[in-house]
């Protein structure tokens, strides 16, 4: 079993969980086993997957972004207002946001600040800006984003095509490119990377800016699906994205992340919500059952990571 490397073991649990959940959904509601059905099931997975990748990039350099939900909400508000009425101004604002993320990476590194705290503060900043921009729900999605998100490619629904593209792009960026190795190295052992002659400052700024970029895409795609925005539209994304990374086999420290796993984790979380509504669980217990699914998947992971340890040695 030489092809079964530790890295692949890491992916096995998320993949198995997703498959089991998908089979359960098909069994409960056979009509979902179609183009339209799959599209509906995974529609909202695209923005969540993008936010999960963004969170993963921050966790890769040993940070944690507690402002992900408010930031994606803010981006959604910008997309539904400025990007639709004055595309140039909107684009400038969004580029500015990515620059701010890069600057956060720099400040966190230079002042030796805990990322959790800085992003905690930023969550108030983004939340405030979003409320200022859209005090009441409204705005409209730009035509072209709407077109991209609702387009119907042959055979496979857009949501799945997009998820595969996101996973492949992030995998190449983080796992295959040489700069990705440096980035993961910063999470693993910062001093080693520095001694090897790489700029930790630049690596951190890049990781944060890339996270900002993916989070911007998340907000834009969300508006493409919902057609309008409000200041609280994506608040759940902070916790969802963290859970997605962990479900996908990532870890909080040490630069051990898996982009493909993260996307699968996001898909699993999206599917769990549909699964519960098909089970006709009382609305009172919907949230609780989501917690239970999270626990079950992580228990499964415990069983399999014990084997991973055996494979690795």
């Amino acid at each position: 079993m030489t092809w079964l490397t530790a890295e692949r073991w890491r992916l096995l649990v998320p993949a198995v969980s997703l498959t089991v959940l998908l089979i359960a959904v098909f069994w409960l509601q056979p009509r979902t086993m179609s183009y339209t059905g799959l599209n509906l099931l995974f529609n909202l997975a695209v923005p969540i997957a993008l936010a999960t990748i963004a969170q993963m990039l921050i966790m890769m350099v040993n940070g944690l972004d507690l402002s992900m939900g408010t930031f994606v909400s803010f981006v959604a508000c910008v997309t539904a207002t400025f990007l639709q009425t004055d595309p140039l101004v909107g684009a400038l604002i969004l580029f500015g946001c990515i620059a701010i993320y890069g600057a956060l990476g720099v400040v966190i590194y230079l002042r030796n600040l805990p990322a959790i705290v800085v992003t905690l503060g930023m969550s108030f900043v983004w939340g405030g800006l979003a409320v200022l921009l859209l005090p009441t729900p409204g705005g409209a999605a730009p035509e072209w984003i709407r077109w991209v998100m609702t387009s119907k490619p042959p055979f496979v629904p857009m949501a799945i095509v997009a998820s595969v593209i996101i996973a492949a792009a992030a995998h190449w960026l983080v796992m295959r490119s040489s700069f990705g190795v440096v980035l993961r190295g910063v999470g693993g052992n910062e001093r080693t990377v520095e001694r090897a002659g790489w700029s930790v400052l630049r690596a951190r700024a890049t990781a944060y800016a890339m996270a900002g970029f993916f989070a911007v895409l998340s907000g834009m795609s969300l508006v493409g699906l919902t057609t309008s925005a409000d200041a609280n539209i994506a608040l759940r994304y902070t916790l969802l994205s963290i859970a997605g990374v962990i479900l996908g086999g990532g870890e909080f420290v040490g630069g051990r992340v898996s982009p493909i796993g993260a996307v699968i984790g996001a898909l699993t979380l999206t599917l769990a919500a549909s699964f519960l509504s098909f089970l006709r669980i009382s609305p009172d217990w919907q949230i609780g059952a989501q917690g239970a699914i999270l626990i079950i998947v992580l228990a499964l992971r415990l069983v399999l990571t014990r084997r991973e340890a055996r494979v690795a040695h």
Partner: protein
Amino acid sequence: MAAIKAMLAKPWIWSFVAAAGVWMVTILFTAGASTLGLTQAALTFAAFSIIVGLGQMFVITLGPGNVDLSIPSTMTLAGTVALKLMDTNNGLIAVGILVTLAVGVTVGIGNYTLIKLLRIPPIIATLSSSFIIQSTAIWYNRGIRIKPPRVLAEFTTASTLGIPNVAWLALAISIVAWVLLERGIYGRWVSAIGQNMRAARLAGVPVDGVRVATYVLCAVLAALAGFLLSCFSGGAALNMGAEYLLTSIAVVVIGGTAVAGGFANVPGIWGASLFLFLVVSMLNTYGASAGVRLFLTGVIIIAVIIAASRRLGEGSSTS
């Protein structure tokens, strides 16, 4: 001079300086008219953040990854269950308090069971359990808002010697927490685990016992805060704990406790809690809208953290 220097070296001093600054600015704006009211309101609302913040402080001190995200849902569950059982009856107050403590103990043990048995990172374990706790509260509550017993409602809203009763309670709990942390073996153990869990284990610290006690302590304090808050505000609401998710973490960190664990700080929680409330009321006094208020709160939090931080390579890293 040396005394001033020693004071400035204390990690908690900045939160008090910031709180005092904001207090002065607000008082100046209203020309002193609101001095008493503002101080009382600040002490009242800070008291709730202080109680949950103390629990979160012990958890965060256990080391990287240790954060309790189930505080809001525990607050909600304790408030709903206790108020429903007491059913506005003054004679059942003891039952209500016992149930509150029981909710806290159960949640704390449940959280640590997940962390230990499934080896889930605490942040994810408490996140998952918070969903289940929240659902239990929704199921138990059924959308009914029950008033607190009259005695409790009066106690939580009244003052003794000019200081709100809830602030006295928070002070008592803080003193106990300070003694536990600075004078007791428990505090040494928590800090030791946060600094290096392996070394602590090898040195004979009962790591699991201390960790489970810490998660129980945090949940019990959250339950107590939820109980007091629902009595204070005339009934439990399902979303009443929501704002304490970020607040509980923010007061710990602004108060000078190390986010990486190993170094806790009780006085700082007071400074930070007063500071956070005063910032919001200052912005209210200036007539800022909700958006501006949130935005400036964030900017001020970040500014305080940067001001209190050290440059890279300067001294030992305590942040």
